[in-house]
């Protein structure tokens, strides 16, 4: 169905974050950009009660051969995109390996027990230290802050999709992004989303 090859087949990608950050939309965008090129894409989503502050996680399995399990095996992620830094650590715990690449937003979303002061939130240095130990490469990006500057914090997810395109492990292009956006979003939102994609891409290159 496609002549293209992947850096790994299947390529296992995880998009993670907290309910309400646009996690599911990001996984749909990436999935469609790859399905458009003829790849088999299987997306497993855990978003049951996640609108209410819980962790959200999408597993994307990209292959030239067949559909795969919507849950990937432990320790087998090739790349992780995280909309919230501590969620990246949570995912690494289950799906990480020494070669995995991580792109993470730096903006924290505090858990209830952090707000109440029962537990503390890790410092930037601590987070960086764990990333160093648990990944092959990582990028920390202030996606939400940039998105706020562009007018809407929710664009943070599209910025990170752009950043994922930037690391070049998957065949994701701006043109492919435009095509998917055009058929899944109202036309009025196209320009700002394209700008967010570019911004994210530029933050890697």
């Amino acid at each position, binding site marked *: 169905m496609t002549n293209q090859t992947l850096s790994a087949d299947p390529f296992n990608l995880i998009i993670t974050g907290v309910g309400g950050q646009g996690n599911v939309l990001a996984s749909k965008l990436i999935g*469609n950009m790859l399905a458009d090129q003829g790849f088999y*894409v299987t997306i497993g989503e855990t978003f049951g009660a996640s609108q209410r502050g819980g962790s959200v996680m999408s597993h994307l399995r990209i292959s030239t051969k067949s559909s795969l399990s919507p849950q990937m095996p432990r*320790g087998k992620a090739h790349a992780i995109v995280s909309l919230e830094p501590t969620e990246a650590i949570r995912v690494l*715990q289950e799906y990480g390996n020494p070669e995995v690449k991580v792109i993470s937003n730096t903006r924290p979303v505090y858990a209830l027990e952090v*707000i*109440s002061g029962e537990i503390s939130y890790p410092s930037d240095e601590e987070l960086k230290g764990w990333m160093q130990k648990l990944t092959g490469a990582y990028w920390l990006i202030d996606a939400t802050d940039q998105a706020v500057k562009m007018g809407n914090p929710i664009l943070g997810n599209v910025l990170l999709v752009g950043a994922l395109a930037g690391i070049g492990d998957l065949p994701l292009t701006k043109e492919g992004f435009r095509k998917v956006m055009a058929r899944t979003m109202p036309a009025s939102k196209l320009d700002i989303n394209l700008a967010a994609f570019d911004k994210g891409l530029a933050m890697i290159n």
Partner: protein
Amino acid sequence: MNTISDGRPGEKRLMQGNDAFARGALEAGLAVAAGYPGTPSSEIVENLARVSRERNIYVEWSVNEKVAMEVAAAASFAGLRSAAIMKQVGVNVAADFMLHLSETGTRGGMILISCEDPGALSSGNEGESRPFAKLFEVPLIEPADFQEAKDMTKWAFELSEEIRNLVMIRSVTRLSHASGNVVLGELPAETPAARFEHKGDFMDPDKGYMVPFPVHFRHLQMQKKLRKAVSIFEDCPFNSYEGPEAPEVLIVTSSAGYLYSKEAIQLLGVEGRVGLLKMGTTWPLPPKFMEKYLSTSPVIYTVEEVLPFLEDNVKILAAELAGRIGVKTFHGRSDGTLPSVNELNPDLVAAGLSKILSLEYTAMAPAYAEIAQAAGATAAPARDLAFCAGCPHRSSLWTIHNVLEMDGREGFLCGDIGCYTLGVMATGYGTLKTVHAMGSGTGLASGFGKLKQFGMDQPVLSVCGDSTFFHAVMPALVNAIHNQADMTLVVLDNSGTAMTGFQPHPGSEEDAAGNAVPALDIAEIAKAMGAHVEQSDPFEVAATQNKLLSLLDKGGVNVFILKQGCALGPEKKGRKLFDVSVDEDVCFGENCGCNKLCTRVFKCPGLKWDPEKKTARIDDVICSGCGMCASICPSGAIQKKEIA
């Protein structure tokens, strides 16, 4: 923007499982669909409703699942193809009708799609509906991937018409809420005509009575239909085998278990030793087809979610066939090869298979796992579910909790099913003390409210949402009034079925297809029933508190309606009512008499604690601008300014 009705035949699409079910129904020429919202089933009805005008079909959100199945059955009786769609617990609600439907049979093809939730990712149970197929003697089919979700739905209508009975399709969260590639088929061009024929002979299946009498005759017919289904299942493209001719272990699986098993075999590299029998038709099992494969291996490993339904049926069949296929060893959920609860994944299936084959299987290098665990323990703080910023339920439960504390008689709140179920947790101050089925909170309150004669003096409250009120609370409320119980029902009216994505309900001004409809008024209904009714806005803390306090000693049945829209609802989302800020000079934090009441107790995610400045702060990205925290701050440090 794309819908499930566009796309050329042969086109390949990335589709969510629920999109594929809806598309399959459209390709089959579905005319009527009815359901009640419930995760992970809701998108099927939503998708169909979205194209209902364009496709000239009728789609409704019914008041509950039993009525949904009745509405769909009416269409079938009138010769149309129809579907009833619900989550697993809904089948319990519809079960009484379903038994009788199986007795009368159907005319136009009729399917039930039950979307289940192994692992309880968004449910209060791991309930199964598969045993209902066995109990009510109707065929059960289970798609294993996205293409099958579409194709088997289409096929189910044909099967239903062939046997003249309901066909049950079972999905799970990992199929309904997962996405994969689907090749589209053709959509039919014509809308069929509806007519209920009832002038024929009493027993005429096409023109007679749709009644369960004479019972024994109808029951025999049911069983005959099921035997016909078995003979069709013997030669069904949705049952398949991959693997060696004589495998050491034969995996028998269905549904999401198929992709997990396939991956587990690859993970262990045992493609040459293990066979994989995927069953699309799981009740009844086709004996000849099963005999062919069961005879190939001495060891049978059944992979399914959650209860050993398939496993038990395979064992029964293997016992019947033992003379020809020999004695087998069985592994699966029953013997502990797989855990007896929770959903599966490739690792669990691989772990079970490695045990059977006496192989080593390590998913993650121990050295890496050790560091990762340490990282998780310190740098990934647990994330309990919480009400969203600006959620009116937080405000309602805050007041209910405080009023019960002030009252001091250990009064309690019986809970129900909806977002407010989270009220059992810290986010709702642990206020809900019971949670069972839809409507059960008020049924229990009706019971508790009659225990005065045994010396019980605790105030009794129940809670429900607006959609739940119509679904199952109304009969419980009628019961309480008729039997003169003492209780107060608090209706948290947030203007929609919020938990599942704002589907309309009988109290809404729009129906599933967006047509304007008269909204039923909960207050007027409760008054007409004979309850004493009060109303308040939960964001008005003092007024709500005083009204509720006065109801605790009133006696009889009270209904207290707390009306305030969901913070994520279409009218409110992204729009702040107030600009909220903290005056750092006025907030004394730990040194205030309240000792950080806002972040320590109230705990809205829009608040945060600044450990440097020792004051509360507002997270502008998360704050929804409801202004509730300004109402609870005793020092007036949190200020709200109305946004014009």
